[in-house]
């Protein structure tokens, strides 16, 4: 067992006395069993929200985006807020599966599958908003550089909005492929256990005929490593480019070189919060308590406090610079005395409370290791990060250079409906995923069982194999 040595000071990542077969059983159980009542309740609520959102989308497309609360000054509001919010949430999945793989963090293995699922589902939601905001989504393919009847009139590669198209579509497709490649051995495991013929057929199809040859595994590991290496700069580039939608404009409050790193940190911050929210529920309903442990929760909270700290420092610097310019225009940016005391004071203070103050509780080890407190704090961060984007967009746009153009943004029921609809859609996808996909990368967890399993650690302790 010496090849599986791990420092005894490290806490186990897999609890209980598990064998390889027990892991198989535990991961397959939610798929092979039937859903309980709570799952159905959650599913139908999400489905209702999703359908309501789809209704609002149809209304928007059929009538025009005049049904939103946008006005002559605030031409972007909830749609781009939601877009940035969802893209940001997606970032944690890639960070966990790619960056933590490069850093050889074993604790990622219990959570990477669900975090990546979250990434993909969140990017779906994000992608909806720019497409609806086009007003004529059937012309959406105009964002692609394809020859056309207008000359050819090409897309504008100088524009950050087009960079976004390329960044988001690369990000979505690469994440999907990364996720699916990792899923193949786990689908194969479900396939080989399946007793019902239909189930067997479906999982054979999904597993692409994975057989697990030594050569396949050698390639699999190399591909995972290279994909992680490619996905790491990719994920950093995506939110960098999203921030350039703002940073390359000339609005005070947006025209800021600090945006790219600060948006990336904020994205990871909000993404990890969403992972905490989802896994907090999932570990209970799928009985994965032995795999998603207090230690995992604590590690994620440490990432949250780090990235949250970066975000807080960025806010402070934005606030200071706005004040230090002495320019009256800067007093209407989202981080200014004007914002804190103006008509949007509630949005400003929501941001400060949810995003800066509440996460500080995570400095306490007791809170950091508490499931319920982590869950509550993660929801607060989700709210806070939504307000961050709302503040950056609505507060900055509400007061332009010309006081006669000052205006306020009031969302209509359609704005609210579409946002709620995307939350419903997200949870519909995630709930379906939790019932049909192996929610933990079982093949990977099996590789760390001997080094990080509680049972094996105990055996080593008893035999003094250190």
């Amino acid at each position, binding site marked *: 067992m010496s090849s599986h040595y791990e420092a005894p000071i490290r806490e186990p990542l897999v609890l209980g006395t598990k064998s390889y077969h027990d892991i198989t059983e535990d991961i397959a159980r939610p798929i092979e069993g039937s859903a309980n009542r709570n799952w159905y309740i959650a599913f139908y609520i999400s489905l209702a929200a999703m359908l309501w959102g789809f209704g609002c989308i149809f209304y928007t497309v059929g009538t025009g985006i005049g049904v939103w609360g946008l006005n002559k000054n605030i031409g972007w509001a909830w749609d781009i807020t939601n877009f940035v919010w969802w893209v940001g949430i997606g970032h944690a999945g890639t960070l966990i599966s790619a960056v933590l793989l490069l850093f050889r963090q074993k604790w990622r293995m219990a959570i990477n599958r669900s975090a990546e699922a979250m990434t993909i589902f969140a990017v779906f939601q994000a992608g909806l908003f720019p497409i609806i905001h086009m007003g004529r989504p059937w012309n959406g393919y105009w964002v692609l550089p394809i020859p056309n009847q207008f000359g050819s009139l090409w897309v504008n590669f*100088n524009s950050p909005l087009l960079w976004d198209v390329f960044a988001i579509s690369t990000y979505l497709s690469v994440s999907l492929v990364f996720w699916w490649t990792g899923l193949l051995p786990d689908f194969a495991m479900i396939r080989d256990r399946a007793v019902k013929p239909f189930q067997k057929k479906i999982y054979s199809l999904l597993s692409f005929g994975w057989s697990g040859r030594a050569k396949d595994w*050698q390639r699999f590991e190399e591909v995972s490593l290279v994909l992680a290496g490619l996905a790491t700069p990719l994920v950093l580039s995506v939110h960098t480019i999203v921030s350039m939608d703002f940073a390359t404009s000339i609005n005070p409050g947006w025209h800021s070189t600090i945006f790219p790193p600060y948006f990336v940190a904020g994205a990871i911050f909000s993404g990890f919060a969403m992972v905490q929210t989802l896994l907090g529920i999932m570990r209970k309903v799928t009985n994965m308590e032995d795999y998603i442990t207090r230690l995992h929760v604590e590690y994620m909270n440490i990432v949250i406090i780090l990235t949250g700290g970066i975000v807080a420092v960025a806010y402070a610097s934005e606030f200071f610079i706005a004040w230090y310019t002495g320019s009256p225009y800067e007093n209407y940016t989202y981080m200014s005395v004007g914002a804190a005391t103006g008509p949007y004071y509630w949005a400003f203070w929501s941001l400060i409370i949810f995003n800066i103050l509440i996460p500080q509780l995570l400095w306490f080890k007791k809170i950091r290791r508490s499931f319920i407190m982590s869950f509550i704090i993660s929801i607060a961060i989700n709210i806070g990060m939504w307000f961050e984007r709302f503040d950056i967009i609505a507060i900055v746009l509400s007061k332009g250079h010309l006081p006669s153009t000052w205006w306020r943004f009031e969302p209509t029921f359609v704005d609210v409906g579409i946002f709620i609809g995307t939350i419903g859609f997200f949870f519909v996808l995630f709930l379906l995923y939790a019932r049909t996909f192996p929610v933990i990368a079982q093949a990977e967890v099996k590789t760390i069982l001997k080094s990080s399993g509680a049972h094996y650690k105990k055996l080593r302790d008893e035999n003094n194999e250190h």
Partner: protein
Amino acid sequence: MSTSKVIHAFYNDDDVLMDAVKQVRAANHHIEEVFCPFPVHGLDKAMGLAPTRLAITAFMYGVTGLGVAIWLTYYTMIADWPQDIGGKPNFSWWLNMPAFVPILFELTIFFAAHLMVITFYMRSKIWPFKKAENPDPRTTDDHFLMEIPVDGNEEELKALLASTGAVEINVVDNH
């Protein structure tokens, strides 16, 4: 004389498997294949498999993607229909290039990632509707299977495999 028979030796522990692979190779037997439920580190070296060259292909695909992106931005923005966009230099790709960096980067990643994964799928013969070829369903759960062709040395091989800790040894006709 070649035979169509193979031996399937099952192991239920990765460390035992590793030692077994080394012993079987030391006894000069050819290991046709090992099926594993999860990656066993060092198994490829122990079996004498050549290193994979997929990372090299990823690099070449990335270079291709970069080339495509350079051509695309040059052709659309400079050659085919130059336009004055925010005063950016539309007469020279090089001077306009800083605005294209995000595109150059994204297309490099796009090509490298997707083409590498497609190469992996083709090389390992995995794709939708492909039938799995692992001989026993336990090999995706907790068993490792070593496949060795029999060449008139069935009994000797069986004895060797049993001594390496195989939990089950079957002689089957090759498909």
